[in-house]
């Protein structure tokens, strides 16, 4: 049946078509949609979970694969960094059932964080990596990935980029394959599943290298890397990897009016990044006068081409990033194809063919991302600001480390409160470093609930063990929110599809030996300021749990919690409410502030900012 689905959904449907027994992962744009779509399917024979972090997700998936069943583990590039400690050891050990790791990279950093090129992880772990260049191909290739994993008995990467993971195309989706009900294997083999000693580890390393060689043979036989040669020897040879190859046809068409003839051009489309397609590259070098390499981010394939060129005594030109023609930053498109062709064939193609009127961009109003109307984090940010002021300090004197997720939005106006964003859980370690460096003013760490479970707990334990003077504010909105409301261990009764038990942060904190612990309601500013300012003055580790459900999610389930009315005669348009809260439900009327009833959640935070009683809470 033909379906309009995203690349993430293609991975999900493809894995079901491959009879996958378990799918695990941690949310992260642009990879999130795969597990989200599977959870919506209410699957009987396939276990699907949001794990506490990517490392645990990979370990769960590995256990399934070591028991002889098929498992898929999904993550964004940052998550791969977390999982890699486990992954390198699993790569050494290999697997029984197929184990596929789906990682999504983000050239152009559309979703923030970094332009990490995860292809290098495949090189480091000597693992095969497949890179589909379209949604439809992602659906097909995930099945090949499982087969390949079982043939070589080792884990296999499949990598998408944002532009495929999040884009929709029509795919012929076949029904899921039956999931194997075979009894799980229990293989006791310390030579394979432990790393005890040099002999075991080096033997496993030897096996790992052999597995990658074997993968190369399977890939060669499958023909997924495709070469097409021009009739006449010489001319331009284009080597395109992953999504870059999706723009070739469009580029050929755009270059045709300027004298480009595709029949005189050879191409090598690389869909298996690792192992390196050495024999195909050698054929290209033997056939072509000039080589154009098209790949996003790092010049990984390009360096391999240089190596083969050196070995084969090639004396033609190689066009790519290493000669400065292309950038290592951002996404590729048709413009790189055309520019490469023009450079390689010395065609005169106007520079401005794909250069629009960009001066218009300078006129656009800055739109810093901020918290939604009704977001509980707004109350927490305001309460921290007020607590700092109450203690006679300025924001510029109080270090507030930040973490990953919606809680980072405190960095932007109107709060300008949070100083740093590094990685999951880093707020805690960084805060301790500032204290160790001798910062005398109070140091505050801020973190969300999902991030706390993911990687915050070790940092907190370290602070307790070493008795560091810091205040941790856990902003618990009960969901992994920024990636689109996924359940985490603290989400109350979140997952009705699987068995699920809520893990309560309010019970974890006291068990760690933390003497000063409060729970606050971030919609109650005055009370929250009292608690936070008190915490900031006490020695040792203090934890404030600011707990209130994400307004978007709560509204979906139970509707708004209140209504705020503007008392027009009291309002003198001082804009204090807008200045302090930055709430998007406000707009300016001619004589008073206005509240958009479609946006207002009724949190009441603005009421406490008004000194003229112009905003009042009404029951609903």
């Amino acid at each position, binding site marked *: 049946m*033909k379906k*309009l689905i995203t690349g993430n959904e293609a991975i999900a449907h493809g894995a079901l078509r491959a009879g996958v027994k378990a799918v695990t992962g941690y949310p992260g*744009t642009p990879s999130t949609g795969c597990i989200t779509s599977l959870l919506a399917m209410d699957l009987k024979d396939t276990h699907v979970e949001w794990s506490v972090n990517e490392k645990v997700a990979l370990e769960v998936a590995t256990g399934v694969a070591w028991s002889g069943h098929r498992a898929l583990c999904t993550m964004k590039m940052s998550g791969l960094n977390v999982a890699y400690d486990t992954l390198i050891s699993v790569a050494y050990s290999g697997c029984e059932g197929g184990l596929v790791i789906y990682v999504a990279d983000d050239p152009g950093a*559309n*979703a*923030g964080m970094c332009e990490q090129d995860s292809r290098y992880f495949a090189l480091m772990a000597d693992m095969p990596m497949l890179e589909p260049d379209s*949604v439809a191909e992602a659906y097909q290739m995930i099945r090949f990935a499982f087969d390949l994993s079982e043939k070589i008995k080792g884990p296999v990467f499949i990598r998408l980029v*944002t*532009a*495929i993971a*999040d*884009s*929709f*195309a*029509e795919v012929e989706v076949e029904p899921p394959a039956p999931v194997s009900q075979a009894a799980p294997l229990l293989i006791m083999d310390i030579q394979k599943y432990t790393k005890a000693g040099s002999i075991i580890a080096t033997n496993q390393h030897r096996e790992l290298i052999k597995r990658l060689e074997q993968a190369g043979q399977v890939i060669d036989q499958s023909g997924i890397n495709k070469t097409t040669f021009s009739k006449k020897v010489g001319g331009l040879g284009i080597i395109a990897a992953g*999504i870059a190859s*999706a*723009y070739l*046809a*469009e580029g050929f068409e755009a270059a045709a009016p300027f004298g480009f003839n595709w029949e005189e051009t050879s191409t090598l489309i690389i869909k298996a990044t690792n192992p390196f397609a050495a024999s195909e590259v050698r054929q290209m070098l033997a056939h072509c006068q000039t080589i154009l390499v098209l790949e996003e981010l790092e010049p990984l394939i390009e360096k391999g081409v240089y190596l083969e060129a050196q070995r084969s005594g090639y004396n033609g030109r190689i066009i790519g990033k290493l000669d400065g023609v292309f950038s290592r930053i951002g*996404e590729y*498109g*048709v*413009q790189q194809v055309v520019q490469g062709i023009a450079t390689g064939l010395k065609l005169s193609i106007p520079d*401005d*063919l*794909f*250069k*629009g*009127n*960009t*001066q*218009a*961009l300078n*006129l*656009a*109003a*800055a*739109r*810093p*991302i*901020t*918290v*939604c*109307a009704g*977001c509980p984090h707004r109350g927490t940010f305001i309460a921290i600001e007020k607590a700092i002021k109450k203690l006679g300090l300025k924001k510029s004197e109080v270090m507030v480390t930040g973490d990953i997720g*919606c809680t980072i*939005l405190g960095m932007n106006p*109107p709060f300008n409160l949070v100083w740093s964003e590094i990685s999951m859980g880093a707020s805690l370690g960084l805060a301790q470093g500032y204290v160790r460096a001798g910062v005398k003013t109070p140091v505050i760490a801020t973190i969300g609930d999902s991030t706390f479970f993911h990687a915050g707990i070790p940092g907190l334990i370290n602070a307790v063990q070493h008795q560091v003077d810091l205040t941790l504010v856990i902003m618990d909105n009960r969901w992994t929110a*920024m990636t689109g409301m996924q359940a985490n261990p603290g989400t109350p009764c979140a997952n009705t599809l699987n068995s699920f038990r809520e893990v309560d942060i309010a019970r974890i904190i006291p068990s760690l030996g933390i003497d000063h612990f409060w729970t606050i309601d971030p919609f109650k500013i005055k009370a929250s300021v009292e608690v936070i300012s008190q915490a900031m003055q006490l020695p040792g580790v203090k934890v404030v749990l600011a707990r209130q459900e994400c307004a*978007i999610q709560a509204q979906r389930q139970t509707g708004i919690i209140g209504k705020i009315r503007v008392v027009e005669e009291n309002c003198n348009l001082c*804009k204090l409410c*807008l*200045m302090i809260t*930055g709430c*998007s439900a*406000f*707009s*300016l009327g001619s004589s008073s502030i206005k509240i958009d009833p479609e*946006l207002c959640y009724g949190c009441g935070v603005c009421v406490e900012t008004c000194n003229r009683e112009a905003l009042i809470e009404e029951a609903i």
Partner: protein
Amino acid sequence: MKYDIFFAGVGGQGILTIGEVLAEVAAYKDTPAKFYPSKGMAQRGGFVKAQLRLGRENVGPNIPQRGADMVIAMEQSESLKAIPFIKSGSDFVLYGDIWAPTAVSLGKAPYPALDQIKEQVALAGAHLVYINPANLPQFNGEPVHPNLFVLGVIIGQTKLRDLIHSEDVEHIIQSRFKRNVEANLYAYRSGTTVVC
């Protein structure tokens, strides 16, 4: 027929829904469609963009600058972010809603005037189809969803109608929005007949 559309707006306006409906109509009529919505880290009110590439099986998701056969923008300032992508001679559809960032409301930051947008659209050689939000029709005393109204204007007034037929759009609206079908169809049909 190849036809590329670039969308720009803010989260919460339903602009991505326009793209989804058009992609579904294309799929329903066996026209190849690639739709790439991009929300970035946007919460409600943040910049969103999307790209729809119709009529080509073998094509990447990103439209190059000067490559879009149409721009659909639903926020005055954010429409500027689509200007580099419009092809000379193409339709630049702007629903002139204004979502002022806080700094603008506080008088601390400038906001582009409609005349400035017009000037930039003209510099890009495109044809502005301006939809005044004040003309948004009402259904049973409530303003209709602007996105379906805008979709109506597009099908009623731009070259896209050569590729996408109005009855197919209505079919998808009916199958997609099972609740409030009447109000949604009204919003769409009002758009198809309005003169901009």
